[in-house]
């Protein structure tokens, strides 16, 4: 009993060895313990009870059905390219509300731009930035190639420029 008292003191001081803690746990797992130790029995029983708690089931996703989640940066790049595409569409001087002399008006960051050259220059800068993000962020990864193939900013820009020119020529 004295030994258990000493071990308990050591235990509450946090200095019991692994072996000593096993002795204590075995002692308190018994039914017939000394009355003076009875009050500590729920403590050791509580630890044993908590050991029985099991985790909810986690179902491993099926690898075959797994869609490759795109890294955050890819979304940023996609957003940049989308913004640039939107800008190109805005560059299309089709607005019926255009008020300027040469009938050319676009909005960039809420500002009216009537100079077509400046607006196109801005759009090109946007594309260059988007392409730079792709180049810097994904160069070390194989994904870079796939993204570049799918989202070639030059190609998108050229296609849109051709489309805008076609629309302009139809209107004129």
């Amino acid at each position, binding site marked *: 009993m004295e030994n258990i008292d000493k071990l308990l003191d050591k235990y509450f001081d*946090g200095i019991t060895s692994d072996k000593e*803690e096993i002795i204590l746990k075995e002692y308190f797992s018994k039914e017939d313990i000394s009355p003076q130790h009875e009050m*500590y029995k729920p*403590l050791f029983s509580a630890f044993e*009870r*908590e050991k029985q708690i099991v985790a*909810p089931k986690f179902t491993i996703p099926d690898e075959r059905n797994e869609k490759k*989640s795109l890294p955050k940066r890819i979304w940023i790049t996609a957003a940049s390219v989308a913004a640039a595409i939107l800008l190109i569409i805005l560059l299309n001087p089709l607005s019926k509300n255009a008020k300027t002399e040469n009938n050319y008006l676009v909005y960039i960051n809420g500002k009216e731009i009537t100079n077509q050259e400046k607006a196109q220059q801005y759009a090109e800068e946007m594309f260059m930035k988007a392409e730079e993000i792709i180049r810097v962020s994904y160069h070390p990864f194989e994904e870079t190639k796939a993204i570049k193939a799918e989202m070639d900013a030059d190609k998108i820009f050229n296609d849109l420029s051709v489309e805008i020119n076609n629309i302009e020529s139809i209107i004129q």
Partner: protein
Amino acid sequence: MDAQQFQNNILCYSDKLYRMALSILRDENMSRDAYQELMTRLWEKRKQLEKLENPRAFLLTSMRNLCIDLLRKERESEEVSPNSEYIAPNPHQLAEQSDSVSFICKMIDSLPEMQRTIVRMRDVEDLDISEIAEVMQITENAVMVTLSRGRKKLREIIIAHQQNERKVYGKYR
């Protein structure tokens, strides 16, 4: 790492991880969500898990960090402290807490987060001091000091609880 390896090397620690979430968050629903979230993240980054030297310590640290983050967010919205102090139960509460083991579990939950996590890692999960230090990212000495504080607090609670019980039963004799 394929599904089988994930099952063998990661999911084998599920119970320990879930119990850690329960200990820190003290809420079953939040703990379930935290556990599912951690497992989902780990599955997504399974390729990187192959290089781990001590996966158990890494997983427990990840679980703790995730839970602490959740608590911080909750505290910002509700201002609930995870380190709330123990308030001795009154005789009425004592009568309600007839199951002394459940009472002790609640009292462990009332310890500050560091103390209850370390006490449970040592006494429930049977981790050695060096591994607890690795999980908690503190020194072994700091682990022993915190462990001692936690256990001493529990001893005080047990003694106070017994004295209160004697008072309650004394009145009705």
